């Protein structure tokens, strides 16, 4: 239960999130990858708060801010997915070729 173990676990979560975000085609699954990365981030932040900041409240505040980021990312992500689906009738990122050039 040392700080290093916590950081390894949060790195593993972050790694799975990166794999998920890059490998999945559909928007909502990419968002789930992002959420997993933020999950790893929260674990790392609280690990540092517990391990090396001696209970400094700003550590907790950062965790709450990461929670806020997660909620905001989810809300805007779903709003975009709904709009893309309304226009393109699909939710696979391939369908948005026109954004390329």
């Amino acid at each position, binding site marked *: 239960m040392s700080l290093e173990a916590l950081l390894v676990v949060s790195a593993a979560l972050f790694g799975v999130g990166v794999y998920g975000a890059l490998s999945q085609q559909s928007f909502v699954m990419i968002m789930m990858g992002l959420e997993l990365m933020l999950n790893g981030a929260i674990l790392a932040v609280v690990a540092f708060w517990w391990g090396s900041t001696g209970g400094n409240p700003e550590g907790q505040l950062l965790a709450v801010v990461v*929670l806020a980021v997660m*909620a*905001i990312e989810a809300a805007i992500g*779903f709003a975009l997915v709904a709009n893309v689906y309304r226009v393109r009738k699909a939710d696979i990122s391939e369908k948005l070729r026109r954004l390329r050039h």
Partner: protein
Amino acid sequence: MALLGSALAVFLAAVLAVGMTRWVGDVLNPLALTVSEKVPFSGGSPPDFHAWNRFHIRWYTMALLFLAFDMEMVFMYPWAVVFVREGLISPVEMLMFILILLVGIVYAWRERGFEWA
């Protein structure tokens, strides 16, 4: 930490109890259902399609508002704890925070986000 340990123990015990009750029922009446006994119930005729479909919920605007407004609760818990200790500054500050969020709710209500097609 020990208190949460006992809470976790109680949770696992309750889940186990539910599992045990179901197991007793399965022992008394072993599960050997024929195809016609597994047909989902919709009043008398077998279904033509799987019930699982892309279920169009019409209140998805409200769902997004819940996400944003959920964060307000996270800030309110610590605020409530230190409310008395901090004196006058706490209600004023939280009032500003709440009014900002209420502007969003009023906007959604005016854009008829809570009713649906």
